């Protein structure tokens, strides 16, 4: 029986075995390659997606448990191709390097900022305990996000 899930607002079905990691279905069947398979053990966060509004590691989520779930991937964060304010801040501060961790960073931070619009530096670092970056040394990512959250209400 196919498993159906709603991916970026669209109903999709997969014949994958139910214990297949959601990550592999997203990447290999739906060609949503934004989420990355880096550690496959829930430590690096590069595969983070939103499942029913919760940031989850898609490598640890069997697709069978995603039946009926609304899954949002990084590809859907920029509505109509316009960068979200978070993505814009990361671009403006030129913090991206190899870029492999950023899809996961964007997904984790997007959810985190929804719940904590004005985090402290330490709160942000704590929130990133499950997102590893090998290139940047983190601090400039934090600077970019804090510049966004501390900015006087940006013009629409």
């Amino acid at each position, binding site marked *: 029986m196919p498993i159906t899930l709603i991916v970026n607002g669209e109903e999709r079905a997969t014949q994958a075995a139910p*214990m297949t990691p959601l990550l592999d279905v997203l990447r290999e069947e739906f060609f949503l390659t934004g989420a990355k398979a880096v550690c496959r053990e829930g430590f690096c966060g590069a595969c983070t997606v939103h499942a029913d509004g919760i940031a989850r590691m898609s490598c640890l989520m069997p697709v069978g448990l995603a039946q009926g779930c609304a899954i949002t991937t990084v590809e859907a964060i920029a509505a109509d191709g316009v960068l979200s304010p978070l993505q814009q801040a990361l671009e403006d501060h030129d913090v991206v390097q190899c870029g492999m961790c950023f899809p996961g960073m964007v997904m984790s931070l997007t959810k985190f900022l929804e719940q904590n619009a004005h985090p402290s530096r330490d709160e942000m670092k704590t929130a990133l305990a499950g997102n590893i970056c090998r290139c940047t040394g983190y601090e400039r990512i934090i600077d970019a996000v804090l510049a966004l959250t501390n900015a006087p209400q940006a013009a629409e």
Partner: protein
Amino acid sequence: MAHADNLYIAASVADAVAVLADRAGTATPLAGATWVMRAPLRREPLAHSYVAISQIEALQRIDISEDEAVIGSCVTHARLAEALAGRGDLAALATAAAKSANPAVRQAATVGGNLCTADFAAADLVPALLCLDAAVELEGPGGLQRLPLQEFLSLRHALPVGSLLCRIVVPRSAARSAHARLPLRKAGDYPVAIASLSIEQDDKGIVTRAAVAVGSVEPVARRWPSLETALVGRPLNTAWIGVQAERLAEEFTGRDGIEAPGWYRVKVLPTLVRRAVEALSAQTA
């Protein structure tokens, strides 16, 4: 890697128990899946089939009354931490749930999974629940069974076929509790040692009841009765307790692991006990 082609999504506890019994011995309950999904990395085969219990509503409940907290086995770490925030007697459990692993894993990993994963020595919730005198409730072919947690930990390798951990019952008390863990980084890794503490004091500050549990030091978490005895009948003095912990720490045989040698886990234990006591004092302040 081979994927189990059989995942049954149980609608109710009775449903799950029936299917587990039906697939005698070949099916394994699956909750948050965070441990099972890593089986290939541990070079373990996946089970023949899984019975998913995470969508059973009854197992997702948290009921906190004045007498007890009843926690469904499929409650995630994140929900548990949120529900327990601000309850001093359960602070050890709240801290354990809030600090374990990382945020996204806490959104998936469940209380029941943490208790049932026998090979996971560094589970945070286990010592926290041990120091709180928690019991577990199992459903199975033989009906409902309640076991003290420590007993469950020794039986969990060989539970009767069809058993399902459904609820964790934590008695409420006038105690205060704390959970001190030592990851090698600041966060994000499994603690190499854990001390969980629950203390009741009389109005003069004399300890009337003490429960200390130690996790990650040995393969299975356990209580520390000799230290508990030493604590009772005296005021809560961090330095003095630390000295007692140092004296008694040799009762533990630390497990050697890739991340830390056994001696290290034992050596840092008194420090964790001190930190837990300090955390208690901070709660009072």
